[in-house]
């Protein structure tokens, strides 16, 4: 099992249609910034972007740039991929808990299948997409 996970960088991902309230995140990825919605009333971050606060249901949300540093909260080794991912297995999908307390689902690359573990520190890796935005992936910190 000490083989590396497929990095999925060569997967021809379908174009992503962005919800209008997600656009600040995707625009941030052009400059490799991790932007996360923040609810000032609850003093909490939320992920993924929503039209209202998950804590108050009000709309006075802010966007804040965060470091993107986090740790593996959980992960799965995808041995079966669908659509454009077929033939690219095995690859890693993780829930990454950012330092700000939200979980983001993302691919983890530059990581062996037996190396990943819950609690492992990770930092962003940006995979370029056709529209000039970047897909947020993660890699082991210090890799």
């Amino acid at each position, binding site marked *: 099992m000490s083989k590396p996970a497929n990095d999925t960088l060569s997967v021809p*991902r379908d174009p992503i249609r*962005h919800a209008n309230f997600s656009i600040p995140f995707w625009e941030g990825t052009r400059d490799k910034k991790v932007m996360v919605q923040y609810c000032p009333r609850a003093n909490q971050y939320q992920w993924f972007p929503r039209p209202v606060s998950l804590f108050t249901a009000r709309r006075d949300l802010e966007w804040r740039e965060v470091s993107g540093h986090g740790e593996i909260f959980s992960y799965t*080794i995808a041995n079966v991929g669908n659509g454009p991912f077929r033939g690219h297995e095995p690859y890693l999908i*993780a829930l990454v808990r950012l330092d700000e*307390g939200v979980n983001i689902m*993302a691919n983890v690359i530059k990581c062996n299948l037996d190396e990943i573990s819950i609690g492992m520190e990770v930092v962003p890796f940006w995979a370029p997409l056709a529209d000039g935005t970047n897909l947020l992936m993660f890699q082991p910190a210090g890799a």
Partner: protein
Amino acid sequence: MALRDNAIVAYAEAKHVMRSGRDVWDYAGEILDALLERSGLERAEIDGVIFTPSATGAKTPMWSQSCLDYLGLETSFTDTTDLGGCSATGGVARAAAAIDAGYCETIVLINADTPSTEDNLIMRSFHHEWADPEGLLGPPGAFGLLSRRYDHLYGLDSRALGKMAVAQREHAVLNPNAVEKLRQPITVEDYLNSRMIADPLRLLDCVMMCDGGNGFVMMSKKRAKEKGYSRFVVPTGYGERTNYKLSENGLEPTESGHRVAGEKAFKQAGIGPRDVGSFHPYDDFLIAMMIQFEMLGFCKPGQGAAFIHETDLRFDGDLPLNTSGGQISAGQAGLAGGGTNLVEAVRQLFGEGDARQVKNIGNALVTGIGWIPYGRNWGSSTALVLTPDA
């Protein structure tokens, strides 16, 4: 009027078939015909209909009317319960509410779907923007993430999961309505050796889609008695929770709304987990049942595997588990699938379990799981306690 003033007077189920080639309304028609036959009702007496959604009909917003039109029914109350795998159990509660409110007197609930013949399901949800670019394989991927977290918190006992797979498969062998190719016994080793799909989730952790249908006739208990039904089943407790603790970023995906839905259903029914005669939990994945044992109070969180090891889950055991094979061994009839374990519970309480009849028909507990959200547990949780002639 209350939930327990209502009664299920008849049930019906079509055989589960992989890629039947039949139209979804052919299944709906088979169920309607069987319900009229078994209940002795005339078509004109039916003034309410509740459907489950359908993967086949997923492109059709006016699903209720489209179905009613094909079935030739004129109604005073019609709805489709849009709660994914909770739709069938949720439909029973909504039917009781509609009868209590006086909207209608006699409701048929029709759950039919043909995803293995025609699947039109498109998820207009977080998936497109936040999970598809990562290559998440739908529900198995989500349950892979959930399973790994469970393993981290409590340790994942694969043999306990395998025991449930084996027990349910034994039940499917005894169920002529189960998908034929699943009516073969398996061993714990077969489970352990099945290939990893979304590691640590194996192939035999998962349901397989099939075509099928099931349904019920409901009316007030008073009316059921007036009409002379000698046997009926009463919903005595119901709980439902959607988006359990959604606002807690730190919520573990091993926590589900069954904690509160179960508590409410048990309280309303006046029973506790120890009193359950047979257990028919929604089973999209084996671990979902283990978590339900924990959330419904059969055991403490993290103790699911120990509970499974010490409990005889066969139809003639201490706590019969999904005695028709559940969806995992009888097949998942798409969005009608929440009715598979429900119809089996009703069948058992009617005493019509045949070769797999359970001994304790004092009550049965049926649950639902609906929708798989982003990085959490599941969207909706239902718990329904059924009692014969209560």
